[in-house]
């Protein structure tokens, strides 16, 4: 467990500097279409990004299995995301991928 740690910087507006240390809530698994997101052969690599350009952030998740990339579109809002079922990133008919050894 982290002990509480506060860093105060001189010369800066203290209210704009966020407190470090014990300030993360306990983790919860992100879900899509009602199920926790789960990648094949593990090694999930998330990235929040507005994939479909609708002004709301979506979620991309890389996976080790096949070097593939999943796209989870956000059907909710930026403050209450609701992720749709994952769709693999495609390039033509094939899965877009990087080598996975």
């Amino acid at each position: 467990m982290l002990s509480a740690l506060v860093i105060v910087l001189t010369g800066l507006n203290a209210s704009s500097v966020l407190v470090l240390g014990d300030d993360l809530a306990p983790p919860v698994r992100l879900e899509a279409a009602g199920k926790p997101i789960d990648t094949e052969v593990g090694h999930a690599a998330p990235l929040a990004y507005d994939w479909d350009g609708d002004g709301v952030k979506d979620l991309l998740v890389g996976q080790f299995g096949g070097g593939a990339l999943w796209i989870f579109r956000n059907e909710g809002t930026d403050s209450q995301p609701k992720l749709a079922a994952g769709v693999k990133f495609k390039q033509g008919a094939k899965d877009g991928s990087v080598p996975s050894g």
Partner: protein
Amino acid sequence: MDIDGDGYTDLLSGSWPGELFLFRGTADHSFAVPEMLKDGNGEIINIGGGITEESDGRMLIRGNAEFERTGEGTFVKYRGKRLESTAERPISTTGTASVVSAADWDADGDLDLIVGNINGTVYLIPNEGTPKAYVFGKEQHLLANGQPIDVGSRAGPCVADWDNDGDLDMLVGADDGSVSLFRNVGSGRSPKLASPVQLVGPGEASYGPRAPREVRRGVRSKICVADWNGDGRPDLLVGDLAVQKPDRPEPAPEEKAEHERIRKDLEPIMNRFNEATQRLVGPPRVRDTQERNRLLEERRQLAKQMEALESKLPPEDETHGWVWLFVRK
């Protein structure tokens, strides 16, 4: 992230073998086929990658390589070379587990590369070109408090303004599942990273009979900073590699007894398989070609027997890759 400055967002990815891949964005929200990033000398970038001759005569390739098993022998294709894997000089391959993102770290107007590596360190590859034509220079270790950043193994970095003071900080995931924050105590133009503070502790991954029944946050954290709940404060997303018992009903007593019998039969076969492997790999490695071929054949037969027995056993564990959200309180 637009690394070629053409107005279309591009996609960057690392890989287990270690090369870095750019999918250039095109019109239509589409992406070109991936290309391996090269440096200013035209060399494919893979920090720590390449060919080494090991002390026992083995050749080790760190990078994207392809095995080709033909009637004439076993070959490995790597960067235009076709190398033969022989009894005298067997070839094995491995990777450098690159994790890449782009950020203008030196504040000169173009995107540099931040690359995590299997050795636990984080590199800066400076862009010595322009926003429309990148030219990547020599990699350098990123320092924190004067020392190279080192999270032990499998660094998974992400740059973001975590403390909301206007400059980019560095967050790094690690093999043990932890996440460390290296605050930028310098400025945007002149970054200076402080010693690490642990934001997230290690996860766990227990295989075989010790795999847990319930969900446990795993290891090999790959991270992303994003304001997930739209409250104006950046949160942390952490992907993992997790292990758990498969969700099946408890076997009946007779089934359990049968599994025990199969496991007892399996043990001596696995031991002979491991012995044959050890003699092939060393040290010391058996070098006589006839003996090596005999050992390879013995291993093949033992592997077949093991597979036949193992197929009758329920798997003891299964792997998962969860995405965890840590909301900023």
